[in-house]
């Protein structure tokens, strides 16, 4: 954007949010050029509105000026979902982080988009309730971002992902209107389910300014088991056996040998270093049932080839087991300076062959690939380890990622289970959808955003966008692994 365009726009935006909350200083813009993906692009202006009405007015001003708008909260997107590839205005929700209502009588809570996922469950805890979707980044990611990507997490195996827990939305649309859609407090509204349609649309239909969510009673007891397997194949077969035998745990997570080594070095979770694979399983419920299910699950694990089954004896042990899993991505810094993560999904029964193929890719290319993932629902997170300072490695890793997503799609799966298509996978989406499928989706997008201003360049394949995708810009260093950078800032 030329300065001659930017200055008057900035002035108008400042008229809405105040001088302090709209800025365009080049140094500050650099802070908003990235998310948790390797992609970057500079915005022209950043706006931090304080109310829904301000968001709507900001959107209206941008839309009138035909300036792209990208919504961003914690910017923990692993798919480049919040990178402003066409520049324009980034709207961020740091000031809209209020829990507006906790309503146990109607099993609902109402939040602003900037509320941190974990903060909601913490606020609900004294009432005996929680908000179910728990992305591993839940200490940082926001409910607004969760709505954008239809975020999942380890415990969505039994209880469903974000869309299953959102009943209504207030939306700022490209037209500048603020509309309320969905059931809000009651079970349903008349008309099309715009709430369900909007969740997971990655900011391309508008911006959620208020979110009505279901809340659920906290399970009285949780029991976490760790089962040790000689290899990933035995472990992944075990997942199908356990589920097929009528126990659907609240979570089943898998870590392979390489991940275990990284995690142990970083967080000393107590995973055995000589294991080929570890499954982390959790059941919840009333104490007497959890006891019984825990025993049945331990038995099923042993019968499916586990050499050892360890049950967390208390909350501290349980937290230690989960800490290892949730910190897995940051632990990768122990193994490699950089990594590239994928988010493919395969039917549970296709896990063994898919993991074997990924292993073959690793052997063929010479790049180490770790696997830490939501095994219960077949949601893989292969991490390709590399060194961004070695010429050609990043490009090679992107090709590996592409190959892995293709094989997930060919196994009857998907190219993204919870991270979203974003910028990263907008060409890979063709592996799962035909031109006709995408044409219908695009027609729907145009209903909400006829001028293509809402988070442009995301979800749909198509024209090349501005911005500095590392594959094309020489000298660009992809994101360094978190442990090297010195913080827990990358999760999955």
């Amino acid at each position, binding site marked *: 954007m030329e300065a001659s365009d930017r200055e008057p726009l900035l002035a108008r935006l400042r008229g809405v949010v105040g001088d302090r909350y709209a800025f365009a200083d080049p140094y500050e813009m650099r802070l908003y050029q990235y998310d948790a993906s390797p992609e970057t692009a500079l915005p022209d202006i950043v706006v931090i509105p304080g109310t829904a009405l301000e968001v709507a007015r900001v959107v209206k001003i941008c839309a009138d000026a035909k300036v792209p708008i990208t919504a961003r909260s914690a910017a923990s997107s692993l798919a480049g979902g919040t990178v402003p590839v066409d520049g324009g205005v980034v709207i961020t929700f740091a000031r809209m982080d209020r829990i507006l209502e906790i309503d146990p009588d109607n099993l609902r809570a109402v939040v602003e988009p900037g509320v941190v996922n974990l903060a909601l469950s913490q606020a609900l805890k004294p009432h005996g309730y929680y908000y179910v979707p728990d992305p591993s980044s839940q200490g940082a990611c926001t409910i607004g971002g969760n709505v954008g990507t239809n975020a999942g997490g380890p415990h969505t195996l039994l209880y469903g992902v974000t869309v299953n827990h959102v009943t209504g939305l207030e939306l700022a*649309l490209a037209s500048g209107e603020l509309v309320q859609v969905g059931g809000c407090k*009651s079970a349903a509204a008349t*008309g*099309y389910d715009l709430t369900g349609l909007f969740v997971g649309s990655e900011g391309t239909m508008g911006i959620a300014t208020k979110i009505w969510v279901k809340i659920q009673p906290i399970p009285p007891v949780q029991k976490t088991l760790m089962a040790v397997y000689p290899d990933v194949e035995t472990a992944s077969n075990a997942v199908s056996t356990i589920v097929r035998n009528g126990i659907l745990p609240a979570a089943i997570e898998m870590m392979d040998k390489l991940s275990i080594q990284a995690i142990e070095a970083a967080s000393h979770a107590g995973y055995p270093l000589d294991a080929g694979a570890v499954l982390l399983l959790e059941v919840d419920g009333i104490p007497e049932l959890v006891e019984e299910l825990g025993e049945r699950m331990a038995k099923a694990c042993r019968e499916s080839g586990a050499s050892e089954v360890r049950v967390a004896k208390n909350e501290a042990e349980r937290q230690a087991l989960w800490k290892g899993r949730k910190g897995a991505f940051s632990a990768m810094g122990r193994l490699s300076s950089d990594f590239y993560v994928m988010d493919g999904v395969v039917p549970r*029964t296709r896990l063994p062959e898919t993991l074997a193929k990924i292993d073959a890719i690793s052997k063929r290319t010479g790049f180490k690939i770790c696997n830490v993932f939501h095994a219960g629902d077949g949601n893989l997170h292969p991490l390709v380890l590399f060194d961004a300072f070695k010429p050609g490695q990043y490009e090679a890793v992107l090709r590996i990622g592409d190959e892995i997503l293709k094989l997930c799609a060919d196994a*009857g799966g998907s190219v993204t289970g919870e991270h979203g298509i974003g910028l990263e996978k907008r060409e890979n*989406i063709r592996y799962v959808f035909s031109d*006709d499928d995408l044409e219908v989706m695009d027609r729907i997008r145009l209903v909400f955003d006829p001028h293509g201003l809402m988070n442009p360049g995301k979800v749909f394949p198509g024209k090349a966008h501005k911005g500095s995708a590392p594959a094309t810009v020489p000298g660009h260093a992809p994101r360094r692994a978190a442990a090297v950078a010195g913080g827990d800032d990358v999760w999955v």
Partner: protein
Amino acid sequence: MGVNARVQTLPGQEITVEEQRRFRVEDLLPSRVLRPADAQDAARELRLCDLAPAAVVTWGGGTQMRLGAAPRRYEIAFSTDRMTRLLEYEPADLTCRVEAGMRLRDLQESLLAQGQRLPLEPPHPDRATVGGMLAANANGLGRARYGTVRDWVIGIAVAYPSGKLARAGGKVVKNVAGYDLMKLHIGALGTLGVIAEVNFKVQTRPQVEATLIAHFDTPAPAIDAGTTLARQYLAPAAAVVLDQGALRDCGLTADWRWTLALKLEGYGREVEAARDRATGIIRDAGGRIEEAGVPSAFWDRARDWSAPDDDLVVLRAIVPLAALNAVLAAVPTDSHVMAQPAAGLVDARVAAGSAAATLERLRAAAGDEGQVIVAAAPAGVKKGLDVWGPPPSGFPIMHALKQALDPNGILNPGRFVGGI
């Protein structure tokens, strides 16, 4: 153009008098019938309807045909009765893919053979089809515990008037690729496309089922016991509050006035604990546990109660849990009611003569956050009723979506919210 000349230009087979009667909607009869063989065929035939253009009403089992306003036009009955195959089913993945014309009962039988089920029980599963269940968003009594249709559909293939067959979602239980068009078509009453195939996730059948019946002198404590249970861990799989008439319809004649019936499901220990807890809550609310139990067909009849085959007027209120008692109090005494307290839902079979006045009273009681719709009514009565109530706040977008996907307005014209 004369009527006969017009009919000559329409796609599809000539229709017999018997078929005309079978595919009647309100007091309108179709001129032609189309019976596509599969999803691709459905898309091709829908294109022909669009070229005419001819008004289409999609038919599954016909169990929800009383829902919605009368069609503005109706020329072609578009029946899915040849699309009945179970296309894929992998028990270990807990997923399946079926054609839209498959009957719910047939699907459940295939799943049962593997110890699994789809925990959705819309009325009349012997006739209701998968596609109809989606289009009408027909949910059973388990919605508070197991969610609704939208929580179990993981993929969809839809035939559009453009002649395209387009998919969304997929075959895996966790998937965020592309727009979630499953949600758009569920409850859209066939106004945006013809649902041709559906992918579901399914679940293992619960190990134990039990029923608990209690009676009350007045409805409020029965409702309160039901909502208290819904707010706790171990929520019942179904909870219904019935008056005497509804209870009799479900096969149980009794001299008490109000009944709370609970279906408990789960692992054995869970069901035992749930029974103990429910017993305590019911006694605290002043209810008396009935030890005699219920007839075997009780839950089936309760499931079907909201979609009667006869010409009854059924109003459905969907309200915040806290507003349930106000709605129940507004139901006239000559009506019969069945409420699902955990889901915030009240169904009332009301007298045809006073249906309009009752609808107004219920809407006032439901408040801003509630909805009251006409779930079923004979054509004559329906003409005087505002079937859907005022259009919701997102209506202009809904209208634009309809324009985008069905520009000639051939799909179920006039039946849906706001005249869509």
